[in-house]
């Protein structure tokens, strides 16, 4: 069969005949994402790198234009599939802004709690994968154990381990099951015990420091110019965090710090994530205390399905239910851009509505896409083996990069 390349590389010939071209990916065992790096090497040093993404493109934005607002929720799960709830909440908040809906206090605090809880799962995954690719199998297994506890716990709440689809416009799918918050505290304590071991295994580990310190260095100016957000931007020393700068949900009531790095290398990105998880645990504990009783969903029949007990006895709820399912929520015409601090950075949704039951346009600003756009600057000038460490610490998620 004829070999077909999706995109031609701009590196087809090397500038210097001594140099060689090396192709990594798109399916490379040491990179945990479907991405292709074509690198020009002088010995072991990367001179130039050409990053190709798009191998996981599935037309999210086109699909969204043909689905009702509720049916898009499962698609948003699959953007950053390590932290589906953060995507869910950002999407729901965008639609709710256009509808002019204010969610109930219980829903607000619960969303904040779950967003932080899911952030722990995402950061754990990122660090685990990076460390494993650098050869640290023990740390990987410890971190995966934490992640698995969180996933089982989320499974208890939502019925899925990874793609939760737990949000609804104007509320949530269901309330917390009995004993869920008790188990949450157990898992947080388990997390603390295990993360202590990770600190012990990695923080002063000579091999880990040699691989990560002073590799993939980034300055704040570079990071801003390449559109970087989230832990990667903060690792350069800039305390820029949407949760602090323009608070949403319940973040303005919480006590938390924004950890920053010193010089923006791979070690800083590791450490910023470790510290952010501790802050998330701190926030989750505050939110358990703050979580009020009361209704979870708004009582707005434009968006929320009628309760089943009415559905089977009265006519209006049946009509209401039918209209919401068949025609979807009628979102008033307008446009809105809303962004949340997802584990990887600024996750923005730009929604244009024409007043019908389907979005006229739904654009996602996925942080990973921007991170890949500037990754070549982090690779050039370093060793071939540093590609693995740098790529790992970028936490590229194909789902939100290629959409």
């Amino acid at each position, binding site marked *: 069969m004829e070999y077909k390349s999706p995109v031609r590389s701009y590196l087809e010939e090397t500038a210097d005949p001594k140099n060689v071209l090396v192709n990594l990916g798109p399916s490379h065992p040491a990179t945990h994402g479907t991405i292709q790096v074509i690198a020009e090497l002088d010995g072991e040093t990367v001179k130039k790198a050409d990053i190709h993404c798009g191998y996981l493109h599935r037309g999210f934005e086109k699909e969204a234009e043909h689905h009702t607002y509720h049916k898009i929720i499962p698609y948003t799960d699959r953007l950053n599939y390590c932290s589906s709830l953060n995507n869910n909440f950002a999407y729901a908040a965008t639609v709710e802004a256009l509808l002019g809906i204010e969610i109930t206090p219980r829903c607000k605090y619960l969303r904040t709690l779950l967003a932080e809880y899911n952030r722990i799962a995402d950061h754990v995954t990122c660090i685990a994968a990076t460390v494993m690719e650098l050869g640290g199998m023990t740390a990987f297994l410890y971190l995966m154990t934490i992640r698995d506890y969180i996933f089982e716990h989320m499974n208890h709440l939502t019925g899925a381990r990874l793609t939760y689809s737990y949000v609804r416009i104007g509320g949530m799918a269901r309330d917390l099951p009995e004993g869920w918050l008790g188990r949450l505290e157990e898992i947080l304590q388990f997390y603390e015990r295990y993360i202590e071991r990770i600190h012990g295994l990695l923080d002063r580990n000579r091999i880990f420091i040699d691989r990560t310190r002073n590799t993939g260095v980034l300055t704040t100016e570079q990071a801003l110019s390449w559109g970087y957000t989230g832990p990667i931007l903060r690792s350069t020393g800039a305390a820029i965090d949407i949760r602090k700068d323009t608070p949403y949900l319940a973040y303005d009531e919480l006590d938390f710090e924004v950890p920053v790095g010193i010089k923006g290398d791979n070690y800083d990105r590791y450490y910023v994530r470790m510290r952010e998880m501790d802050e998330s645990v701190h926030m989750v504990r505050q939110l358990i205390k703050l979580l009020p009783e009361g209704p979870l969903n708004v009582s707005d029949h434009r968006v929320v399905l009628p309760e089943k007990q009415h559905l089977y006895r009265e006519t209006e709820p049946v009509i209401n239910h039918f209209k919401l399912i068949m025609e979807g929520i009628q979102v008033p015409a307008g446009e809105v*851009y809303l962004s949340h601090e997802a584990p990887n950075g600024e996750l923005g949704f730009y929604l244009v509505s024409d007043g019908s039951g389907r979005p006229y346009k739904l654009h996602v600003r996925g942080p990973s896409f921007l991170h890949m756009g500037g990754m070549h600057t982090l690779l050039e000038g370093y060793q071939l083996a540093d590609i693995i460490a740098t790529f790992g610490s970028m936490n590229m998620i194909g789902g939100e990069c290629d959409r």
Partner: protein
Amino acid sequence: MPYSTIQNDFNALFERSWDSFGMLVLELPAENLIPLVTRLKTELGFTSFLDVTAVDYPSREPRFDVVYHFYSVQYKKRLRLKVPVTESDPTVATLTGLFGSANFMEREVHEMYGIKFAGNPDLRPILLYEGFVGHPLRKDYPIDREQPLVDYRK
């Protein structure tokens, strides 16, 4: 406040402005894009180019809106710019000279909507592939049209 500064001092560079859920929106002709963005970046700290996309209105003239989002680190404010362009000449100037992030995002808008970014040296496909016909996010591209790169197995 950056919003009042923009509305008072920069008003020669845009045509209309309005508020969209707390975010200032400016509509401007394509030729004012570079001067406005340069001033925003240098004078008001809009150093983060967050996003660019386009919206297709097939029955409207001009047909496309190119939509930009910026973030001012200094003032912690976001800003939206809208540049209407016609179907016959869907050209705006590239921002790659000002922001590195323009590189990948303009490639995406170029392949998805066919917007031309004058001066961008690298407009290869990014999420699609060489030889893809049409622009899939335009409204006249049917959702079920398939163009597999490698033919399906019979």
